[in-house]
């Protein structure tokens, strides 16, 4: 899929699948739910960063690599979506 063709719904679907895999969750997660309560930590979030960069062909700046920037599914979707805009 071309980077301009990703909409927020597609991004959310991918993000959610990666989060569930990373945290070994069976159930869906509300977009605004704090993932720390599911056991998300900075190490797990780095795994997700690598997956997002690879899948969406984007690069996060060093200063963005803070856990709270990826604290919820919505945070991740918004950040990825922002990177994909021309």
């Amino acid at each position: 899929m071309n980077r301009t063709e990703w909409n927020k719904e597609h991004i959310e679907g991918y993000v959610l699948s990666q989060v569930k895999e990373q945290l070994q969750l069976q159930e869906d997660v509300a977009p605004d739910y704090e993932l720390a309560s599911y056991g998300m930590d900075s190490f797990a979030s780095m795994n997700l960063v690598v997956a997002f960069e690879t899948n969406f062909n984007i690069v996060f700046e060093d200063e963005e690599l803070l856990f709270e920037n990826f604290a919820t599914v919505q945070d991740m979707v918004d950040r990825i979506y922002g990177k994909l805009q021309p």
Partner: protein
Amino acid sequence: MNLAWVDCYIDKLLTLFPDIHPYAAMIDRWAFKPVWDGKGEEVDLSRVLATEEQLLTFYGIERSCENDWIDEALRSGHLVLLPCDLFYMPHAKVFYGKEHAGHFIVVRELLPGGSYLIFDDHPAFCGRMDRTGLKAAHDALGLPYQRFLPEMLQVTDASAIGYVSRMLKADSFFLSDFARRLLVSEETTMRKCLILKGTRHFNHRLNGFIRMVDAAPLPSGKGEAVSELRRSIIQYMDDWRVTVNLATRVLLQPELPIWDRVQNRLENHLESEALLPNAAVRFLELLHAEANG
């Protein structure tokens, strides 16, 4: 077993004794010291433990370390801090069945049927755990549990400020020295990144200092100075966390040339050596101004 600890059990002490003033309860975080040798990486807790002993004495908290199982202590109304391997703890989803890590949990109650009511602050959990699982998690470490009498002395702002003043003066900040030693060491890049990754919980300790600042009964009209101090700490904390996360990326993607960026960040940390000690001195001045005013 040589394994990482993802805890600072002063946090659990706060759970058991919520009246302990946050100043004193958080101050041990300054004593955190990452070390490594030919065998592995760990956190040197000697200064933490020394600080903790002073803290317990200061607040009149009686503790004993026990090697038997916890049922009798719970039946006697004592509070229990139980060292556990998170590999066996289902509520710790990141570690459960995947990674070994030492951790303290609070055991609140022996429930009918022989299970236990446990509490953990991070990862947050309050609920039941069966005896077999809890005992396996505890036995994996081979460490004694801590048993506390459920009474303590009254803590006042004045006594807490007095305590924290002494501890801040006695402590010195070591993270720049850590960065310097890591840069000049002859370890491989991957080993250096592993060592750095081991400091990823350092932000919890600096967060403790933020809590101290927020809770301080500081003089009116000092809001700007406090905000500045808060910003200094957060900036320092975030800089270090980014460095650690970059090192984690090196471990995840060793083919990418990221180590140079990590190295540059470590060198920047050397330059900001005085930032936090200065912030701590400024904080102390404000506390003293209040205490004397």
